[in-house]
């Protein structure tokens, strides 16, 4: 043994004269690091109550509960996370997956309380000392990407090729793409409340993610008898509230619905026993109009055992979807595939029968209930001079006339007035027929009621968008017409909403064209309802006002779809049909 070995340990005493490494608590206190995983905070106004924090928490420390003062709305469950510090391990998974980024940790870690119950609290609702703490572990979705991811890209035909034909623009997902896309769903179910028909979206997305496509189709038919049509042209209100859309892209719910339907040549075969008429109950229901609303009411009534007769003026069912949406968006074979299901379910179709006042009277006496789902038939008027010139036509009538089968418009110049889907459909159809198309709209592009995709694709197809143009009049020229307009300025609406256009100056601008299509909307045509009946119903701007079960107030008459006030899209019409089924059952039983 060396002498130094005896002495050297005592040198440690030199530390006694130096500053200690330890922190003399409580006179000196260390704050948590900037990124410290301390106590929770939640921006309750940003939180949508999707419950992903609850799902990811491996300790079951988070429960979603109803909070007073926060009501459920479309896209917000009204629930907020409650954290139990008896279970929490501060791993921060809840923070990193929070779809809106509202949940966060502060760097505060000291909390002394006599009341153990307060250790289970609702961040952001129950006031805590650290609520305004700015430092702490925050989500960095750009680093991790756990809170939102990009969508599986859909193959879309390039504009140069697609304008040559009426072939479908959207090519659809492959099986792998669809399963990957569907597996992005976090099963929060916010979409269900946003969908007018309350479809089982999380369930069928899960089925698609797991490759159970038959199950997915059966789930569609639970509350939507036109899934393939909705899979192609739905306004997809579900996607607007998708939790994945906040920090990524919303799930392509519409494309996935389309994908699942496209996996089968016959939907009737897939559904088999699930789409059979119910046990007859001896009651008869007449449905006027074979559009989405009429068909959905007919399908579910027939499944309940009612004898359902559908009447439509056209030779095939499907309504607007069938005769006005162009082939490149909704090919005809998809519609006939879906119509087979109605026949299998026992719905009796009476095509080519336009209902007039006398016939409606007859229906009233022959059937136990009547469902009016005739939609909007009459094109609106632009109320400008020259509207009755021969070169000026309603766009809606043009779309209905199967223009793809007619002679082309090669070398012609076409003007389309309007900014809705009908305007886009008309303009894009004319492009495919070889015309040069100019689209005139009163407000800005962002104010257009058409789908964003429609607008975007129309722009890609070299349609000349003349926005902020107010029509003045249409004049006749030697070879065609002359469209005159003012340039507009936007006056903001003090109540919010779209601005109103006003002429910028007195200058009149002119475009010479061969044809002008007016696509500024449709209005109802209720002349087929006898006046005596109309008096018994509540009408507003030509539309029938109904209660929450689509009852008109007149005998056993129900109404739904575009003939009643609403969103004016297919899925809302389908939802009306579903409500009418309940209304009819309640009334007849």
């Amino acid at each position: 043994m060396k002498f130094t070995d005896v002495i050297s340990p005592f040198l440690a005493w030199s530390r006694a004269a130096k500053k200690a490494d330890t922190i003399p608590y409580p006179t000196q206190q260390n704050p948590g690091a900037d990124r410290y995983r301390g106590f929770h905070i939640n921006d309750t106004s940003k939180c949508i109550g999707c419950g992903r924090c609850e799902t990811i928490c491996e300790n079951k420390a988070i429960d979603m509960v109803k909070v007073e003062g926060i009501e459920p709305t479309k896209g917000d469950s009204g629930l907020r996370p409650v954290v139990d510090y008896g279970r929490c391990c501060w791993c921060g998974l809840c923070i990193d997956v929070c779809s809106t980024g509202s949940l966060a940790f502060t760097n505060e870690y000291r909390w002394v309380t006599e009341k153990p119950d307060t250790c289970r609290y609702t961040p952001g609702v129950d006031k805590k000392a650290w609520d305004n703490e700015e430092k702490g572990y925050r989500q960095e979705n750009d680093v991790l990407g756990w809170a939102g991811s990009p969508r599986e890209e859909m193959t879309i035909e390039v504009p140069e090729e697609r304008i040559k034909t009426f072939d479908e623009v959207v090519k659809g997902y492959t099986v792998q793409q669809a399963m990957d896309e569907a597996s992005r769903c976090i099963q929060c179910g916010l979409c269900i409340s946003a969908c007018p028909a309350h479809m089982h979206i999380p369930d069928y997305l899960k089925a698609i993610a797991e490759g159970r496509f038959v199950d997915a189709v059966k789930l569609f038919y639970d509350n939507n008898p036109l899934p393939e049509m909705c899979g192609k042209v739905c306004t997809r209100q579900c996607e607007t509230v998708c939790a994945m859309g906040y920090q990524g892209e919303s799930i392509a719910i519409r494309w996935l619905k389309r994908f699942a339907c496209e996996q089968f040549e016959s939907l009737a075969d897939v559904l088999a026993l699930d789409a059979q008429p119910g046990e007859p109950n001896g009651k008869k229901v007449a449905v006027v109009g074979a559009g989405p609303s009429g068909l959905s009411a007919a399908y579910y009534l027939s499944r309940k055992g009612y004898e359902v007769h559908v009447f439509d003026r056209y030779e095939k069912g499907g309504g607007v979807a069938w005769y006005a949406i162009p082939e490149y968006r909704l090919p005809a074979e998809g519609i006939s595939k879906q119509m087979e299901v109605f026949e299998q379910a026992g719905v009796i179709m009476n095509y080519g029968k336009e209902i007039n006042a006398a016939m409606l009277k007859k229906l009233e006496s022959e059937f136990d209930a009547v469902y009016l789902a005739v939609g909007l038939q009459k094109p609106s008027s632009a109320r400008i001079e020259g509207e009755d010139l021969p070169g000026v036509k309603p766009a809606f009538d043009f779309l209905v006339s199967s223009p793809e089968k007619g002679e082309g418009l090669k070398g012609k110049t076409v003007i389309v007035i309007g900014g809705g889907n009908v305007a886009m459909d008309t303009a894009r159809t004319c492009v495919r027929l070889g015309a040069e198309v100019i689209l005139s709209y009163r407000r800005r592009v962002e104010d257009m009621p058409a789908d964003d995709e429609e607008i975007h694709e129309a722009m890609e197809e070299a349609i000349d968008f003349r926005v902020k143009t107010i029509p003045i009049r249409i004049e006749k020229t030697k070879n065609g017409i002359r469209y005159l307009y003012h340039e507009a300025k936007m006056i903001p609406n003090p109540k919010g909403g779209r601005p109103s256009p006003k002429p910028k100056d007195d200058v009149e601008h002119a475009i010479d064209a061969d044809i002008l299509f007016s696509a500024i909307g449709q209005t109802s045509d209720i002349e087929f309802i006898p006046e005596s009946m109309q008096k018994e119903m509540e009408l507003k701007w030509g539309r029938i006002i109904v209660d929450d079960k689509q009852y008109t107030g007149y005998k056993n008459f129900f109404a739904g779809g575009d003939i009643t006030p609403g969103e004016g899209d297919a899925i809302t019409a389908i939802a009306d049909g579903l409500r009418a089924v309940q209304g009819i059952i309640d009334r007849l039983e």
Partner: protein
Amino acid sequence: MGVNPATDPKKTTHLFFGPQHPGVTGNMSIEMWFDGDQVTKAITHVGYLHRGFEKLMEKRLWIQNFPLVCRICVPEPDINEECYALAIEELAGIEVPERAKWIRTLVLEMGRLAMNLMAFGGQAGTVGLGTGAMWGITFRDFVLDLFEELTGARVYHIYIQPGGVRRDLPRGFRKRVHLVLNKIEKRLPEFDRLILNNAVFKLRTKGIGVVKPEWIEEYGLVGPVARGSGSVRDVRKDAPYEIYDKLDFDVVTETGSDIYTRAIVRRRDIDLSISLIRQILGGIPAGPVATKLPNLTEWRVPAGEYYSRVESSRGEYGYYVVSDGSLKPRRVHVRGPSYVHAVPLLERMLIGANIADVSNIMVSLTTCPPEIER
């Protein structure tokens, strides 16, 4: 039937050491029989942790196991996250960005440094030199400050994830790591004077707790226990993971085989970690730190099995992960070095040991009971 002389109640004293004892590492106990103050027989007991990590993991989503695996080794949690992440990455075919690999290596070395500082000081504690234990804990705390800044937590970092790490380095982090390393390095000679150049420590550790070199193969010993007896096994060199093949280092090895040698190995490991951290800090490339993962709550890791291994401060550490392609692991098996060190090896080493050296021997193996009872 004759009475076993090792447990003869007339000649031996029967005692339990632990689980509630400061000289025991973690939650385990040793049942011992003594003849005078010499151990005649020792049986180790585990079962006080009652967590069942491996079984729990089968009931949780893949990602939910990260807050769990780190608890299998409290002082050095990162190796668990690393092993589990490596296995998932292999099964799911996930590429890890280069920067993330460097940061992971940094974290692993910081964890190793913290663990070795505590273990080195702890060794002094078992011979009654409490100051050494306190200093070890204090130095470790300097490293934990860095972990807190980087990961948001001092002990359970939950930082390494499949596809990378959860956060990028904070601004100015490298500089602060250098400062801490300098501070520790400046104090290490003091540490040496207190522990290694201490007459009492030498008397209590030299020639005691000898691990015979032939036991290395017999028991499958790894880490400082094997390297103190002449082994040169080190997964970082033998099967480099992350960026260890880009770092310049030699495996620390000594031949003394006793407790004192193992303390020296640990002390040299501290120097090695400091050198490696400096090398890493000088080479971290720019770029992303994480690969995007699928939806975590619906993530099905493709079916397959994989054994991932890393070098922990106690030797080779491995995870055998089996996936049946579902949302949760089918089976996860944790192979920690403590399994052989703290059960068969310890039981053998204790025979003939003095009662006062039991804790000393046990701590020199740096055993970690959760690795045994996982």
